[in-house]
């Protein structure tokens, strides 16, 4: 049988933020690409909804608040069947805070960084321990960043800077993990039609939202568009790519 270089067959992949938006789509599309997925999210009901949409397989899920960093190691251990090795990870969990810089306080940075950055890096550290890595096949981790990490956006100092931190961390992590054949990359979406984008639009006057749409020559993205970028990076097709940021933004940044 000839396997497509874009297949995720036989790969175990951990996905955070799997209960909605981009994370949900990544979970569903990875399962369709043949992966066995292990899902983490905070909301049980919505996580179960994602789970019910997966292609058949030995998938698993666990309800977890990633901000509980001290429990992340035990959460991962409980999520993964004994002796499992993990090839991929997609950190799609994320929080947003939209407010002028004048109203952005340390607590806003702290809560965003805890989920968007630190939880993702901590999970990568846990999963890159030898006990979880097949040193023959290595692995591939993907962090969902944002185009706001590269292009300024009003009202997004806390959010954009947390996403920029991901890009910086990805490059250093990629260098360190090559020894275990683990590739580390980021995907930076433009505006994607998700519940999180709705909260952004709620804060913007109608004309600003229209302007944003015009800035996306291919229109706003679907979560699936981002999921496909993740699949590419985790598949055999992406085997020579590490430490990079795959901008997936419908032309916003051109």
């Amino acid at each position, binding site marked *: 049988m000839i396997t497509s270089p874009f297949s995720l067959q036989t790969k175990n992949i951990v996905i955070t933020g799997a209960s909605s938006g981009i994370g949900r789509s990544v979970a569903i599309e990875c399962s369709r690409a043949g992966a066995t997925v292990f899902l983490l999210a905070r909301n049980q009901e919505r996580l179960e909804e994602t789970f019910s949409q997966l292609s058949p397989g030995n998938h698993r899920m666990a309800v977890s608040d990633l901000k509980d960093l001290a429990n992340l190691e035990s959460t991962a251990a409980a999520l993964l069947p004994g002796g499992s090795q993990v090839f991929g990870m997609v950190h799609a969990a994320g929080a947003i805070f939209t*407010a002028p810089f*004048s109203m952005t306080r340390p607590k806003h940075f702290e809560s965003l960084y805890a989920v968007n950055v630190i939880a993702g890096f901590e999970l990568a550290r846990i999963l890159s321990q030898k006990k979880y890595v097949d040193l023959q096949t290595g692995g591939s981790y993907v962090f969902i960043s944002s185009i706001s990490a590269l292009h300024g956006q009003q*009202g997004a100092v806390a959010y954009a800077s947390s996403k920029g931190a991901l890009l910086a961390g990805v490059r250093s992590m990629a260098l360190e993990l090559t020894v275990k054949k683990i590739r580390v990359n980021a995907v930076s979406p433009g505006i994607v039609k998700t519940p999180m984008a709705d909260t952004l639009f*709620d*804060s913007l006057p*109608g004309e*600003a939202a229209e302007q944003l749409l015009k800035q996306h020559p291919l229109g706003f993205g679907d979560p699936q568009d981002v999921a496909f970028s993740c699949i590419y990076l985790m598949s055999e097709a992406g085997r020579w790519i590490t430490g990079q940021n795959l901008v997936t933004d419908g032309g916003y940044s051109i």
Partner: protein
Amino acid sequence: MKKEEFLRLLKEALEFQDIDLQTATDLRKIEAYDSMAVMAVIAFVDENFSKRLTAKQLAAISTVGDLMELIGMENFSG
């Protein structure tokens, strides 16, 4: 929250120190009440009243009193 306290905090959040903000003040007539100020009001209300307003709701009102109605008068005294 006392009405005076609300007006003081709102003024501070919007950096409207030079403006005499009263319940009858028409926000739309204030030059500095721009899209960033709208974003600031949304964040301010969320922070202080745990209520998430939208830019659309704010576009439909004019005075500070209207804003208080949106937040819910039961939240105010004095």
